[in-house]
């Protein structure tokens, strides 16, 4: 075990993967010599050389499209998009090929590849550096869309994503990159994709969240417990698509009250899908309308306005109080 932040944990996962599987290749802008703009790929070029850790020119489409080609050839590429806001330049390659080649060739070619990218607000960066658009990928058939929330699960999920035969979009909550540390085992550890976790057990209300929103959500849960004696259960989705409907509905069956939390725009967000599934499976257990604490359907403001904009513990607790008071 070593205490590390999420950057260190992700680095360890890639180190595990590169060390134990010589078909694993990393590629992206500035991931080699510069070690990634967030230093997530620190020291990997030195350790594995420039045929395994590849600095590319500036073209997201060719990074993802090139990775698709590598995967067709039998490698396991791990591509980095410098920010999720620039991954749209590669969106056609994701939708038309990464998500489809396995199905298109009826299983002949696997798309065992990962596209990693930092997402989310809170780091005081310029336009396009703060958004959360997991919906684009969750809505696209054929992909896994994974979002860790702590160093330990980040390491385990990234390693599993790389090892998995499925194509994975891996969102890294950049606001959490260095915000706290956790014990991470030395030995390679993985976690099953597609499974949510109960991050905090409770009985009165269910919070469904993931990624960077886990921290304010847990904080709100603690606050509510401390100040009002409310027992909130917190579901950490970890994989937002395919969604672990069972874990969500089990919790809701118990609590009957729900708040869904995400940073991304509200309309057609993961929250909408969570609500739709609860309605399909557990409507009769609902004792109050479900509230969404999310980014609004506007562009993520430039950073002078971002602190006010981002969903926070207070806003989550407030929504919970409304749901509880219903």
């Amino acid at each position, binding site marked *: 075990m070593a205490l590390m932040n999420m950057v260190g944990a992700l680095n360890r996962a890639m180190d595990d993967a590169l060390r134990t599987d010589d078909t694993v290749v990393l590629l992206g802008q500035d991931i080699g010599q510069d070690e990634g703009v967030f230093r997530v790929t620190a020291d990997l070029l030195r350790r594995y050389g420039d045929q395994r850790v590849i600095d590319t*020119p500036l*073209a997201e*489409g060719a990074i993802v499209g090139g990775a698709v*080609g590598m995967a067709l050839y039998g490698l396991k590429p791990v591509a980095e998009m410098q920010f999720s806001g620039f991954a749209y330049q590669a969106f056609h390659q994701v939708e038309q090929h990464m998500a489809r080649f396995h199905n298109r060739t009826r299983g002949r070619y696997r798309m065992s590849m990962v596209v990693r990218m930092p997402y989310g607000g809170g780091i005081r960066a310029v336009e396009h550096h703060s958004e959360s658009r997991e919906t684009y990928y969750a809505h696209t058939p054929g992909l896994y869309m994974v979002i860790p929330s702590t160093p330990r699960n980040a390491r385990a999920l990234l390693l599993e994503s790389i090892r998995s035969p*499925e194509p994975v979009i891996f969102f890294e909550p950049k606001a959490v990159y260095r915000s706290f540390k956790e014990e991470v085992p030395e030995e390679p550890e993985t976690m099953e994709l597609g499974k949510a976790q109960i991050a905090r057990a409770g009985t009165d209300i269910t919070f469904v969240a993931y990624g960077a929103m886990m921290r304010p959500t847990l904080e709100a849960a603690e606050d509510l417990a401390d100040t009002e004696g409310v027992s909130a259960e917190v579901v950490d989705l970890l994989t937002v698509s395919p969604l672990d409907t069972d874990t969500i509905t089990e919790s809701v069956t118990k609590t009957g009250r729900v708040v869904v939390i995400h940073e991304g725009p509200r309309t057609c967000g993961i929250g909408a899908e969570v609500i739709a599934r609860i309605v399909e499976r557990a409507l009769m257990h609902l004792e109050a309308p479900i509230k969404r604490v999310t980014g609004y359907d506007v562009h993520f403001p430039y950073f002078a306005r971002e602190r006010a904009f981002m969903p926070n513990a207070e806003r989550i607790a407030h929504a919970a109080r409304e749901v509880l008071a219903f």
Partner: protein
Amino acid sequence: MPRKPITVKPKLEYLSILDGEGKVDEKLDPKLDADLAVKIYRFMVLARRMDERCINMQRQGRIGTYGPCRGQEAAHCAASVVMEKEDWIVPAFREPGSFFMRGWPLETILRFWGGYEEGCQPPEGVNDLPIAVPIASQTPHATGIAWGMKIRGAKQAVLCYCGDGGTSEGDFHEGMNFAGAFDLPVVFFVQNNHWAISIPREAQTRSETIAQKAIAYGFDGIQVDGNDPLAVYVATKEAVEKARAGGGPTLIEAVTYRLSMHTTADDPTKYRSQAEVTKWEKLDPIPRYQKYLVKRGMLDQQTIDEIEEDVKAEVAAAEERYEAARDVDPLDCFDYMYTELPQELVEQRQEFAEAIEREGHGHGH
């Protein structure tokens, strides 16, 4: 501190060996051995006859919209023939001869245009990609495969097809640029058939040739007469050998012509003249090449007839195999989504199964 012209390093050439009348430039003739020379001819004829059959079958409603390759047989057959079994071919969508040559069953093409996913599944042992529908989006895949070869130290190469229209897409640029930057063993082969649906080549780009686009990426470009199988063969062979030897990519522009409509859904009389088509019909690659082979003594009327007979039988057999396998299970659209089906799709599959059961859908078309 002067003002001076810049001379660029990459070579830019034009190559033609066998002219429209079947006359050959003796100095440039690659003198193919007879087997190879006739193999190319055979696949050109096969592509032509299959193409004609597909148009018929589309008319009969037995396949859907079809995109013909008539007139472009020399361009893709004489290029693909260069590739070894362990090489990879990344097609666009107008290279049926290439598929046949590589061992894809003829009915694959019928399945693709007939609306079956089965038309995109490469046979075991064949290193090729299926037809790429989004124009030029296959270019970075070719680059990625070649990158894999380089990383693994394999002595293989990739041949990547694209149309003249495709060169306008960002994917073409990005795929070419990465291939150059990493010196990858890939040959980009543009079938310039003068049209992208209704957009003529001149309106597609202001550059006089497609070949010169290679200059932007720092590697060689060559424009060849795409209706001349010898020129196509020589240019492709040289480029593939250079690629395999670590010399990096090449862009080949094969100047050819789409003698048919864009697809069977298209009416080319809306945008081009019959005179243009007639001009190009005279440059048809098949009679021209046939004349050459006969002159060289590699082909006689009897063999020509035999090839026609064989091809006819092959096409008929493929058609039968296609018809025999049209009963498909709509439910299996779930089965290749992932290596292992996630729970939510298990449930949706069940829901779909119940729906088609209730609704009494037959299997397929």
